[in-house]
């Protein structure tokens, strides 16, 4: 029988005993009761949003989860996660309150049906996207030597997602302790698997050298016994396992969206494993179990209904977001005089050496980063020789490695992912958008993803349309993500160190590739001095403000990344020949953008020029201008953006130069702002 649930004891489940029939049936009936009650509540209009029930598939949840060690094993589930969650937590209130949007829900009412987090249980609603995350969790647990096995639930429809195979590949290469469970319910939402899936399902994993098994999920006790042996095999270090469970979803994909053949469903209903189990234990026990399940769900619903509904205080959220980064002296993010001779590439490389030497939880993943190659831009050179276990060259699988970094960071590691060219971030966009940047918030603060994704961006090297972009624009508006761009006016290595160990938020760390061979700029531009705005005094990635003493400034010029030399060349001429004195701001944290230093400067100058290498529409400059205009209204007399032309970046040098901004255009923009 199930234990009584209280808020104190619900987290204390330890090594499960061998699953008995009655116990298994009780769990399955609880799951069934919750799912059916949810459908009723939706029908009655008492629930908001959506849900995906697992009616008919309860055996999978109970059989697999019953074989796991709940004190250490990890579960990553998908959109159809209620059964897995209940089998793991045995707590209907956490689930019901969550779906009802209550603060007492598993994710504080933020996540809802598909986005649950409780101890070692996670779920997310993106098909396939969860697979590298789960695989990364397995890598972290392997590195920590915890002995934990990570179970990842997918459906047959998930096989259409390529990132699944990236994950299989790396799990097998590195013999990761991960169990992939495919619940084959024969439909991808409404489309039969026969129409979506060619070839052999098991062979997909087998092709990567992963051990596989396929069986019907009709008996939870037998399944649990089988899964127990599978889990022990994984725990023994024999690498990943792919388990296909044949099952059937008796209810709709979601709510009422069922176009399947009614006869087929009826036939399946008669073969419902739950009915068979009830038949086995007899009417009396079944009735007792049904009463118990109903009573527990009644009680859970009653408690959830009186709990406060989740709400959002935008200001508090902002503060909480900033609170996840440590406060450090902003001035230390600028290079000291002894850094004058250091190249940016050396500076970053030294920082990575130091990070790996000092922090055992720092691990590097990237393509071609192992020596002697040391990464396409040599930032990672020498690292794998010193730290062979923590510097891994990966397959060409950007989505896979970014997702794995997300999973590793969920489990307390500090992964640094090197993406060879920033352009390839597009391949990993789902991981950044739907997983890494969301976990902390949608799991109500129960998880952190302190990973850093390093990416060289920008042009001037003749690499053409797909290797030269300033792609950061695509990620500026992602809540939960910090976007940092290094410049040679900052200390890039120190910014990187801060991103890795002082910031528990995920950081997209951009390195404009023309910077690598540049030296750190330790001396202020001619005639200017560095000031730190009061808002940046404790900032991890402060905006540098260079001003000309004795002048209020005629114009505010804002830039970031690799354009500093060009902007300074322009400003020099702007001063010498046009007699325009600029306040010169170099931003490091692009998103979320701290506006105060810019705003204060424009308050004095009334004129604003924003220089970026990306294209102008919907870009950095657009955001800066919009926000300054919102704040200052007519106090902003003139504003000009300098950016690349709205085109892909050509390969030919003269054409590339025409597309990208240059000093002459910047000078002209400053002059025009001051006219």
């Amino acid at each position, binding site marked *: 029988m199930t234990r009584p649930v209280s808020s104190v004891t619900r987290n204390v489940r330890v090594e499960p005993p061998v699953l008995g029939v009655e116990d298994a049936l009780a769990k399955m009936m609880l799951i069934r009761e919750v799912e059916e009650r949810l459908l009723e509540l939706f029908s009655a209009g008492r629930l908001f949003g959506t849900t995906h029930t697992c009616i008919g598939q309860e055996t999978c949840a109970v059989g697999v989860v019953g074989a796991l060690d709940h004190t250490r094993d990890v579960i990553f589930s998908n959109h159809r996660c209620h059964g897995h969650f209940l089998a793991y937590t045995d707590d209907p209130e956490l689930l019901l309150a969550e779906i009802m949007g209550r603060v007492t829900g598993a994710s504080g009412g933020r996540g809802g049906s598909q986005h649950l987090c409780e101890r070692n249980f996670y779920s997310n609603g993106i098909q396939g996207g969860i697979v590298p995350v789960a695989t990364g969790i397995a890598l972290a647990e392997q590195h920590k030597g915890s002995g934990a096995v990570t179970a990842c639930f997918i459906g047959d429809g998930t096989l259409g997602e390529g990132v699944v195979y990236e994950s299989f590949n790396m799990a097998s290469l590195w013999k990761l302790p991960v169990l992939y469970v495919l619940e084959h319910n024969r439909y991808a939402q409404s489309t039969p698997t026969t129409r979506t899936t060619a070839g052999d399902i098991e062979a997909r994993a087998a092709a990567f050298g992963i051990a596989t098994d396929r069986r019907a999920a009709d008996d939870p006790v037998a399944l649990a016994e089988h899964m127990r042996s599978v889990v022990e095999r994984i725990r023994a270090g024999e690498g990943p396992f792919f388990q296909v469970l044949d099952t059937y979803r008796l209810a709709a994909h979601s709510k009422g969206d069922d176009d399947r053949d009614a006869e087929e469903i009826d036939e399946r209903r008669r073969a419902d494993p739950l009915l068979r189990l009830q038949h086995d234990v007899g009417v009396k026990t079944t009735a007792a179990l049904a009463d118990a399940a109903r009573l527990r769900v009644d009680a859970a619903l009653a408690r959830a209904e009186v709990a406060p509904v989740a709400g959002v205080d935008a200001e508090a959220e902002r503060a909480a977001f900033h609170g996840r980064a440590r406060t450090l002296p902003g001035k230390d993010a600028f290079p000291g005089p002894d850094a004058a001779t250091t190249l940016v590439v050396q500076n970053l490389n030294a920082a990575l050496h130091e990070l790996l030497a000092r922090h055992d939880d720092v691990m590097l993943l990237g393509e071609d980063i192992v020596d002697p190659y040391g990464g396409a831009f040599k930032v990672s050179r020498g690292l794998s020789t010193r730290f062979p276990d923590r510097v891994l060259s990966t397959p060409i699988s950007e989505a896979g490695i970014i997702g794995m970094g997300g999973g590793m960071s969920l489990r307390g590691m500090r992964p640094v992912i090197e993406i060879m060219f920033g352009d390839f971030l597009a391949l990993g966009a789902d991981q950044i958008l739907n997983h890494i940047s969301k976990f902390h918030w949608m799991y109500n603060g129960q998880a952190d993803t302190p990973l850093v994704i390093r990416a060289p961006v920008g042009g001037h090297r003749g690499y053409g349309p797909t290797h030269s972009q300033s792609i950061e624009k695509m990620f500026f508006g992602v809540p939960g993500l910090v976007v940092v761009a290094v410049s040679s006016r900052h200390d890039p290595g120190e910014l990187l160190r801060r991103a890795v160990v002082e910031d528990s938020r995920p950081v997209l760390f951009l390195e404009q590739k023309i910077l690598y061979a540049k030296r750190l700029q330790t*001396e202020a531009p*001619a005639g200017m001095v560095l000031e730190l705005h009061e808002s940046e005094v404790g900032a991890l990635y402060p905006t540098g403000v260079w001003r000309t003493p004795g002048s209020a400034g005629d114009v505010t010029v804002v830039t970031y990344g690799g354009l500093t030399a060009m902007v300074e060349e322009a400003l020099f001429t702007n001063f010498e020949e046009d*007699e325009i004195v600029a306040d010169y701001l170099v931003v490091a944290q692009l998103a979320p953008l701290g506006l105060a230093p810019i705003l204060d400067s424009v308050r004095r100058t009334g004129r604003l020029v924003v220089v970026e290498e990306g294209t102008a529409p919907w870009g950095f400059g657009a955001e800066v201008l919009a926000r300054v205009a919102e704040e200052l209204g007519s106090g902003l007399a003139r504003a000009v953006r300098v950016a690349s032309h709205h085109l892909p970046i050509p390969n030919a040098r003269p054409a590339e130069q025409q597309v990208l901004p240059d000093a002459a255009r910047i000078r002209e923009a400053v002059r025009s702002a001051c006219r």
Partner: protein
Amino acid sequence: MTLTSSELPAGVHAVQVPREIVNADSVYVVSWAVVEGDSVEEGAALCDIETSKAVVTVEAPVAGYARPVAAEGDEVPVGGLLGYVTDRPDTPLPSAAGARAISSASGHGAAEVASAASASGAESATRISAKAQRKITELGLDVALFAGRGVVREEDVVAMAAELHAASPDVCAPSNDARGPSQLKPMGTIQRRVARVMEQSVAAIPASSLERMVDLAPVRERALALGAERKVMVTEVDLLVHAVAVACRDFPEFNGYATADHRVRLFEQVNVGVAVDVAGDLYVVVVRDAAAKQPEAVAKELRGLQYLAARQRLGVEHLSGGTVTVTSMLGRGVHRFVPIPYPEQAAIVGLADVEPGSTKAALVLVFDHRVANGGRAAAFLAAVAEAL
């Protein structure tokens, strides 16, 4: 302020404005013969700098890679940094802060004037735009006027000029000048240096002058004979240089100078400076230890120096170290002139025709009355005439 080698990283050699340049406190960088990273041999020409007297070529102190710092047109003080020669093309250079400290102009050529009120560096720095800088030059203003004024634009320079004019109408040509319209033109850089030297001399040296007649006929004969014998062109001036050097042996006070604290510095070696006019610019080339040389050797040396002067290729060694000076107005239809001695010298000896067609010439001595009185000076001049 200079960099000593101990302050420089290994493999980095500073190239500074040579200290041996006399009578100049700063030079202009005319042109670089090399660009950043060029491989240079020891002694290879790096850049030309313009002193009060000449364009001088600065050479690489060692073999390596040229790393210019001062820009063309920059004014750099004597001992200031022109650039570096490094043992690798990418050897890191000392921070620009250091470079700026020893160079009056920044790497960008931005003029910065330390504040008169405070020496606390950038906080009180003055930033003068290039446009303003040109205006300052055009109006002949002193850049120090703008110290501590923050940003200086062209309009500020014009305003300053107007202010100064209000206070002292001589500074700028007034618009209602009774003498009619006028134009204020800057002197050429070399002439500016000459002007300073002359001001310095006149301010410091109470000079007196003596003159005696000499017959140049025998001198010319001797010059021709010597020239024919030694296959070299010998002039009266060459012989005069030699004669002055020889006379100085017996009159050492004319081969030295009076110090401000009323002592006399006497040089052992007689280095005779010779004024040379090249296209209106005055250069003083130096024949070292002229007393120890034969007249024809002196002549040969002077031909070489004149050749270099005509091609603006005089080096520091050709222009520095003079202890007494010789100048000539022969052939210019002048029968009398009073040259001005160089600062830190006691005597200048000149030669001018008395009248056209005559072989008579005027031998002029202008001397510092502090080192000698008239009688002694007359005796010195007689000794020169004798040696001639």
